[in-house]
């Protein structure tokens, strides 16, 4: 029997090898694919959505707010009274009850409610505003002036009701002194704002809120400011009355905030350092300690609690500690500050543009020491211990560490 030529034999063995490769791959592939992959099965019903729980106080209070929003002062008063009965120690329940009474044109009961609020918390600013309006409506002008002065003194200068309160004071004091306020053209167009304040407290609050675009339950002092402007530009009696409604409502919301926030106040919006570049420069004889930080920076966050205690231990007539936050979003920076209960003042420097240009800060955290000329007299890069029990000694040590004064 003749042997096949070698090339043909080789070719055949190649074909066999290739076929074998194919067979093995297919067989192994099938086996691997059929191997079990996933876990157990249990028949069950779909999960019910979680129901949310609201406390009786919260329910009553929310009901009051909703009633105020709908213009039903009587229901609002009942609801706030119920809330006050459930928890008589929350001043805002009394404050809102007072505003509800004012809306019902019952100024004496309103004054009593505002008084109670102030007996619980003497710093309940909105209670002074309401008390001023209530006392004026009750005929107690002197008492009204006193309350409104206190409101002006305690409230933030940017509070949209500051202007109204001051206007009311001016009118009341002029009337007390026997002078009749000049009825200028502007005043002729819009009732004096003192009267607006009074009307505000007494009037049909929520109807105007609806008219003004429904600031609704969540109306805030910031939102009210917008309304003020609108009212001043295009005054109408109902709008002026509505301003007090908005105030009452914003008070109500402020109360909600306070009652449910573990006593951590919502800080005001962070002022942008770009708008006030000299704000970090301290007055003569004072040293500014500026901590440049970001919420996304772990070491910065770790340093905040000790800085806070440190700030509290410093002599405010000699040192002033402020934060310069470099987060991208100002609103979220504010929320972070609120969540972490940072209490020292902060400015906002989006993405650290100002800190880089003015102080050459490119890494965080950094703590700068500024003199009254605005020059950097010392700088701490990174974190360090900020011992509250040796605050001033620590500052002295840093200042004496030999760093040269940097050009402004």
């Amino acid at each position: 029997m003749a042997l096949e030529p070698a090339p043909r034999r080789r070719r055949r063995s190649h074909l066999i090898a290739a076929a074998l490769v194919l067979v093995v791959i297919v067989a192994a592939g099938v086996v691997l694919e059929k191997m079990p992959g996933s876990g157990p099965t249990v028949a069950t019903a779909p999960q019910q959505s979680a129901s949310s729980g609201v406390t009786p106080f919260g329910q009553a209070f929310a009901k009051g707010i909703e009633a105020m929003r709908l213009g039903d002062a009587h229901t609002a008063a009942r609801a706030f009274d119920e809330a006050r009965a459930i928890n008589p120690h929350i001043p805002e329940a009394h404050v809102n009850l007072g505003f509800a009474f004012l809306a019902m044109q019952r100024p004496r009961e309103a004054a009593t409610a505002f008084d109670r609020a102030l007996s619980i918390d003497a710093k309940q600013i909105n209670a002074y505003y309401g008390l001023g309006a209530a006392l004026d409506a009750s005929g107690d002008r002197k008492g009204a002036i006193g309350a409104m002065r206190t409101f002006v003194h305690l409230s933030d200068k940017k509070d949209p009701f500051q202007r109204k309160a001051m206007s009311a004071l001016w009118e009341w004091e002029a009337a007390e002194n026997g002078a009749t306020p000049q009825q200028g053209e502007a005043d002729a167009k819009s009732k004096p704002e003192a009267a607006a304040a009074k009307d505000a407290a007494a009037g049909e609050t929520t109807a105007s809120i609806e008219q003004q675009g429904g600031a609704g339950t969540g109306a805030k002092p910031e939102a009210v400011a917008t309304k003020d402007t609108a009212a001043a530009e295009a005054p109408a009696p109902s709008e002026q009355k509505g301003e007090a409604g908005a105030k009452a409502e914003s008070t109500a919301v402020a109360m909600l905030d306070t009652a449910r926030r573990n006593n951590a106040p919502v800080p005001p919006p962070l002022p942008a350092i770009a708008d006030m570049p000299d704000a970090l420069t301290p007055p003569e004889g004072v040293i500014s300690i500026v901590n440049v930080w970001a919420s996304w920076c772990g070491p910065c966050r770790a340093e905040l609690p000790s800085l806070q205690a440190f700030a509290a231990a410093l002599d405010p007539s000699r040192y002033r500690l402020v934060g310069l936050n470099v987060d991208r979003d100002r609103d979220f920076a504010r929320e972070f500050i609120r969540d972490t209960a940072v209490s020292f003042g902060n400015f906002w420097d989006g993405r650290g543009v100002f800190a880089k240009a003015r102080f050459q800060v490119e890494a965080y955290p950094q703590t700068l020491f500024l003199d009254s000329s605005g020059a950097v007299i010392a700088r701490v890069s990174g974190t360090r211990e900020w011992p509250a029990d040796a605050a001033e000694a620590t500052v002295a040590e840093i200042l004496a560490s030999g760093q040269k004064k940097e050009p402004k």
Partner: protein
Amino acid sequence: MIETFRRVLRRLGSVETTSVLIVLCAVIALLGIFLPIRTSNWMVLPFALLMANLLAALATNARLKSQSMLFAFHAALVAVIVLVGLDRLHAMHGRVEVAEGSMFDASAVAAEHGLLHDLRLGEVRFLQGPFEITYAPGMKRRETESVIRIPEQNGGWREVRVGDHTPLIFGDYRFYTTHNKGFAPIVTYVSASGDSRTGAIHMPSYPMNENKQGLAWTPPGATKPLKVWLHIPEPVFDEAKAWKFVKPTNTRLVLIDGDERHELSVGEVVSLGSAQLRYDGLRSWMGYTIVGQSMIHWIAAASLMACLALLGHVLSVLIYGSRIPAAGAEHGG
């Protein structure tokens, strides 16, 4: 003519060409780490040349022809390359977040897939149940067990538990849990026209973004986004201790609309212009990675074949040694 073709084929299948192409592929692969060329179609070229080199070698290389195991090894390599190419054309990779208590929504999947992949995620239906994640001290994520409920034809639900390594297999797709998960406030938004919609706002991944539970969110039909912040009053974990992922209680939803700031507890309503929004509660969301059923088993089989063939070749060299003919004997290389 035929001789010229054979010469070109021999040159293409030569060991020298193989060496050059392997170096070229390695350089391009390395460059792909630093440059965006890895997404370029030209990346295929060197690998296609390598494939041609391999086929030419199988056709012309005398040593391959004379040694069956070596031949089988190279044939298996061809199979691996072909299968990998097919796999890429059929591949699909996606990511999706599903809120607890919500059905999987195929339109929410961010997917990349090959030219030949027939995307059929719309056929996937499941309900996200609760999930449990354990952490070791030092924030080390351990086991993830996510409960998935699959609707059955009889109206009931089949419950399965999936994890990072235990996928939910749905037809051609595999769903794996990931490190990506977080909290989802449930809100009901009533637009100015009275349309009411309830949905979940997926906050940034937690605990990775523990300090920034905020995002911009545009309500349905609205033109302007709101900033939403989830206020968590108490820390959910202590990094130094072992803990389980749990939903925080007493959360509040902060809505920032321009200069206005609203803060809602569960059940509270806020008016946003002429629309209204209610905070209904807090749930969590789980992030899944989705892998389209690939040819991984076939690639594994071909790779196994290649390994076995190479082993056989090595053994035959050890046993028969010098009796194996020299490489390139046929084409004179």
